[in-house]
């Protein structure tokens, strides 16, 4: 191949600093979006299983509307289509205070929340109906039954698919570069701009994403083991 590799572009000049700031932005964006996504996911996932149909319908609408439109469209929606709906004063304030970051948080959080919601619903529906009935019979209200019995169990059951969605969220955060958020993928392209060494820059970005995702997966599998309910799950993780 005529391409000459020059890995030193990754640690000479400002490259290291850019990768670091990109990594920090990616983490900030992902954590903020994750919190939003989990909150929305828990609320709408729980509402999709209740008996009151208007609540169920509202949650179903949220899930189907937001998960069935591409994330890229949501990015443009929150960045380009929402601000003009707001009063001029708020618009100017947002434009001057990092609108793109918060637009990306909303886009990613609301979109991933719809996906989390389905994961949680499947968790709740895997719990025998008798659990809810027993909780209500013992004097809890429906809300209390969800809060103290159903959700704590469901959230433990869904750790593996939940981890999946969290990793997806982290990787999807790279779409934010389309609305000028300077996250990790953006910074790897920046290195390419300055050094014309695209393959090296992309490799660095790939490795950082890989390390991040593997660390999260490892952490989550530890959480999964710690919070497992003995006897609830058939063939749980074997101890080594």
């Amino acid at each position, binding site marked *: *191949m*005529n*391409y*000459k590799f*020059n890995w030193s572009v990754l640690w000479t000049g400002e490259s290291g600093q850019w990768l670091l700031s990109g990594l920090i932005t990616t983490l900030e964006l992902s954590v903020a979006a994750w919190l939003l996504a989990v909150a929305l996911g828990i609320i709408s996932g729980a509402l999709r299983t209740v008996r009151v149909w208007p609540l169920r319908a509202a949650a179903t609408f949220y899930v189907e509307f937001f998960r069935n439109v591409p994330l890229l469209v949501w990015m*443009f929606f929150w*960045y*380009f289509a929402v*601000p*003009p709906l707001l009063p001029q004063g708020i*618009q*100017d304030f947002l*434009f*001057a205070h990092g*609108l*793109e970051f918060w637009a990306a948080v909303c886009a990613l959080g609301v979109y991933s929340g719809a996906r989390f919601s389905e994961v949680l619903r499947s968790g709740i529906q895997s719990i025998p109906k008798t659990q809810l009935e027993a909780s209500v019979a013992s004097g809890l209200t429906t809300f209390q039954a969800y809060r103290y019995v159903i959700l704590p169990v469901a959230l433990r059951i869904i750790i593996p698919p939940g981890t999946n969605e969290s990793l997806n969220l982290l990787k999807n955060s790279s779409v934010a*570069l*389309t*609305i*000028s958020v*300077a996250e990790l993928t*953006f910074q790897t*392209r*920046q290195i*390419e*701009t*300055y*050094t*014309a*060494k*695209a*393959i090296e820059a*992309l490799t660095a970005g790939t490795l950082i994403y890989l390390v991040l995702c*593997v660390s999260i997966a490892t952490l989550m599998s530890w959480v999964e083991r710690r919070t497992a309910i003995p006897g609830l799950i058939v063939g749980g993780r074997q101890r080594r």
Partner: protein
Amino acid sequence: MRRLMGFVMALALLVAGMSPALAQQKSTLDKISETGTLTIGTRTGSPPFGYVNSKNEWVGFSIDLVEELIKPALEKKLGKPIKVEKKESTPPTRIPLLSSSAVDLIAETMTDTRARRESVDFSLTFFVTGAQFLVKKGSPIKGIKNIDGKRIAAQQGSTNARIIREKAPKAVLREFPDQPAAFQALVQGQADAYTNDGIQLAGLKAKSPNPAQWDIVGDFFSYEPYGMAMRKGESDFRAVVNAGLMEGIESGKFFEIYEKWFGPSGELPYPMSPQVRSFMLLQVVPK
């Protein structure tokens, strides 16, 4: 953990194993001769260099230079007819497209820079421009001197963003992957100005729904000579590309194509200054 290490090792071996195969690549001229095709990377949204026009045809100044000057030179050299195939390239993808042999020649709006010359080779310069700003009429921004604290949209991967960062570190840069998104940000006020090469701003302004609403301001704050990029170390191929351009400049064909796109009745009127004309002529070496 051990299994993970094994996986990483396997991946490393796979990559290492691929390299020798890539090393034995044939030269670009042989590739073009064998396939009968010259594959170029060009733009779809940079009028008038490479864009899709209202009749849905993929045309432009850079594309014409390839079709009318470089293609005949290649056919003469190889002694057989070839066809030109177009693929889309953008600032972040153009060098990888070349290195991976997906395209043989980048013919769009790529500025020849010294850093890029370490990765690719460039042809003669075929267009000269410099960076300016596009602003709403009546904007206080008059040039690079007074953009401190202002939100400046730029195209990611372009040389302009880099120069803003160096010359006006207090400006707030907002970089977008393509021109339409950056322009949209300017239209809605997310950005106060959009910077790009003057000629591209002129193209954007002319194509916008209401051209009178926009102003192109400031002196050129950078020098942007456009060249066509090729894989490094392909001097035979580069000689043919340059010969094609030189013959075109010498015979006047180059200036005819320029007139077609930038002349008074062209897509984007932009008369060639006498300095640029003599610069073009001076690039031509004797037969």
